[in-house]
């Protein structure tokens, strides 16, 4: 029992990341009808927003501190971040410590801008082209974005720690009455899951309860008619692209403490996210979220020692295997609608 709960918990954080990326992919697909292979790159750019902010905050100047001596007795050189000068030492340290959560604020405008520029600058010209062309051009864009990041940040993963307050783990088992130390779950992963839930809820609420969201949903159902009613649906879809980019970016920001970001993390997640979207059903938002969590949890179950002992290597392929089975038995995915991508 405890092992099962542990695996469900372990699956949730990865599932959250899948769900967030798949949600963005589905939003783009549902609104603009474009298959965006560069979506993983947006996730990666989000993660590097956190890295960038961390670097900006820790920009330092060097002073010679006479009160401290090194082992030779010379005065010690100390790097003092500029934020100390601006906010005082204690506040400055706290700001640096909280760099990752702060990056969320920094990442939202950046990601929306990146998304809007991408849509207006490139993807706009591909609505009338076949899906293969869309896949290819966004694939090229993903390579370019990835290489640009690699050029500026190098090829190695860059550790970006969570705030000190969230280090350590929660003994979840003890709370449920199991023996202590059986089910231990890091705080940051709980935060990530909560964050993903909030974002997903936010997107759904935005689409469901605002006038803007209503118009977008109407546009998803019948773009032409909405346009004929005198509504500038293209502009709204562009904004939705920006929002989808922001969702992917925020997912990336929050993922940095779990996995140090590197330039190909986007591609690694992208392939899986596409599989998630297809399993959930192309164009279905709840399907994407459901499939994201489902596959995340399945993946962590498949990595249990007991399971690997029976079927070796299953943890590596479970997601693809599930995708193949689902596609063959339920061609539209778990919650897919009729008439989406059936040509």
């Amino acid at each position, binding site marked *: 029992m405890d092992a099962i709960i542990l695996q469900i918990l372990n699956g949730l954080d990865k599932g959250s990341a899948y769900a967030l990326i798949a949600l963005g992919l589905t939003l783009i697909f549902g609104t603009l009808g474009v298959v965006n292979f560069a979506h993983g790159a947006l996730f990666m750019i989000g993660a590097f927003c956190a890295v960038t902010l961390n670097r900006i905050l820790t920009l330092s100047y060097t002073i010679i501190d006479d009160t401290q001596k090194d082992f030779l007795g010379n005065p010690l050189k100390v790097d003092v971040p500029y934020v100390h000068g601006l906010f005082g030492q204690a506040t400055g340290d706290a700001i640096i410590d909280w760099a990752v959560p702060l990056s969320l604020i920094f990442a939202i405008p950046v990601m929306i801008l990146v998304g809007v520029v991408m849509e207006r600058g490139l993807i706009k010209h591909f609505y009338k082209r076949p899906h293969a062309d869309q896949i290819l*051009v966004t694939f090229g*864009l*993903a*390579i370019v974005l990835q290489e*640009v990041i690699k050029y500026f940040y190098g090829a190695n993963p860059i550790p970006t720690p969570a705030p000190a307050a969230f280090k350590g783990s929660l003994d979840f088992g003890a709370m449920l009455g199991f023996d202590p130390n059986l089910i231990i779950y890091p705080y940051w992963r709980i935060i990530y899951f909560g964050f993903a839930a909030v974002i997903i809820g936010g997107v759904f609420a935005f689409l469901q309860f605002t006038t803007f969201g209503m118009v977008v949903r109407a546009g998803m159902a019948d773009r032409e008619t909405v346009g004929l009613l005198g509504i500038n649906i293209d502009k709204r879809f562009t904004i939705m692209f920006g929002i989808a980019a922001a969702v992917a970016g925020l997912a990336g920001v929050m993922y940095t403490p779990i996995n140090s970001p590197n330039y190909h993390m986007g591609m690694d997640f992208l392939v899986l996210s596409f599989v998630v979207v297809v399993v959930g059903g192309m164009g279905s938002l709840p399907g994407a979220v459901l499939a994201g969590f489902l596959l995340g949890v399945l993946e962590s179950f498949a990595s249990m020692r007991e399971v690997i002992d029976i079927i070796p*290597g299953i943890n590596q392929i479970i997601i*693809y295997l599930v995708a193949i089975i689902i596609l063959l038995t339920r061609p539209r995915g778990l919650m897919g609608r009729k008439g989406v991508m059936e040509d």
Partner: protein
Amino acid sequence: MFNLSKKDLSLLILVAVLTLFAPFILNPFPAGSAMAQFNAGYPDLMQRFVIFGIFAIGFNILFGLTGYLSFGHAAFLGVGSYAAVWMFKLLSMNVIPAILLAVIVSGLFSLLIGFISLRRSGIYFSILTLAFAQMMFALAYSVLTPVTGGETGLQLALNDPRILGASQTPEGNIPVPGLFGLEMRDSADLVIGSWVFTFNVGYYFCALVLLASFYLSIRIFRSPFGMMLRAVKSNQQRMNYTGLNTRPYTLAAFVISGMYAGLAGGLMASMDPLAGAERMQWTASGEVVLMTILGGAGTLIGPVLGAGFIKYFENIFSKINDNVLHSWFSFLPDGLENAVVFIIHPFIGKGWHLTLGILFMLVVIFLPGGLVEGGQRIRGWLRSRKSKDNGSASHETNPAE
């Protein structure tokens, strides 16, 4: 001759001349001169041109004719390499059985994967092939390590059985792949003045295979079967409504292109007898898509051009460094020279992938027909200028390949 139309025959002859005289064509600059770095006439690179050419020709039979975009074709290349290396380990160092086994095994794999994947079309087909390829990649890396060598890759060893050959040479080395006594790595140098031309056995073997596969691809393109595949691309639904089951045709195309990929993999292992899982990664599949698109999907010569183009510039761009750039632009004033070098710097050396990505985007955006379409446009433009000079507008249209 060869049962080909005049146009196709001239195309085949063009490819034959290009490949057979490649050691001359690719080595236009004398050794030791400043331009020698643009030479590509060394065996390793020429082999890669030809092998990836075969791979792209095969991919084009699927993608160019039927329009099914497979994102997992590198898996078949990887399977082919593994099969060939196993043949070297168990049977003999002769390349013929190795390549035969590579083609057969990859054909079987593509039959299985194609049978499942082709139940869906469009993006779903792409995702399915991608999923299969990623699965094979993951398995080759982890569980199948006894078969695939895992992370280190599959290599020959001194104690391999090699029942029809020798486990080791009299000197105690691992034998090299060969064809009835001709060693693949043997090469002869021809020195004319300050030019050095290298003729490599392995290269010419690959080149002959390329010619055979190119000829086969022409025949497929011009056959009723190829016509059927094209009909699938333009309107599959209508085909179905006429009471025709298209799946056997698409499956056949898939298997043929999978076998081409296996052939390329087998050749790759014959030139350099090792196989690794990274050949199966989806970025490798992306590369062959790139080559086909860049050259021109659906055209005969396009994939070969695309493969040569990408491999050539990959090699050249990776070799150029800042010093080379400085020596090129030394005629500029110092400040300007540094600025130019600074601008170009991200695109060369390790930045080759960036250049490739940009190039790829430009081609997809502006030239969806690839290099072949570019050539046709230039030709059409020249012709229209000429006809304007003559005062008569030509109404001739280029037949689509």
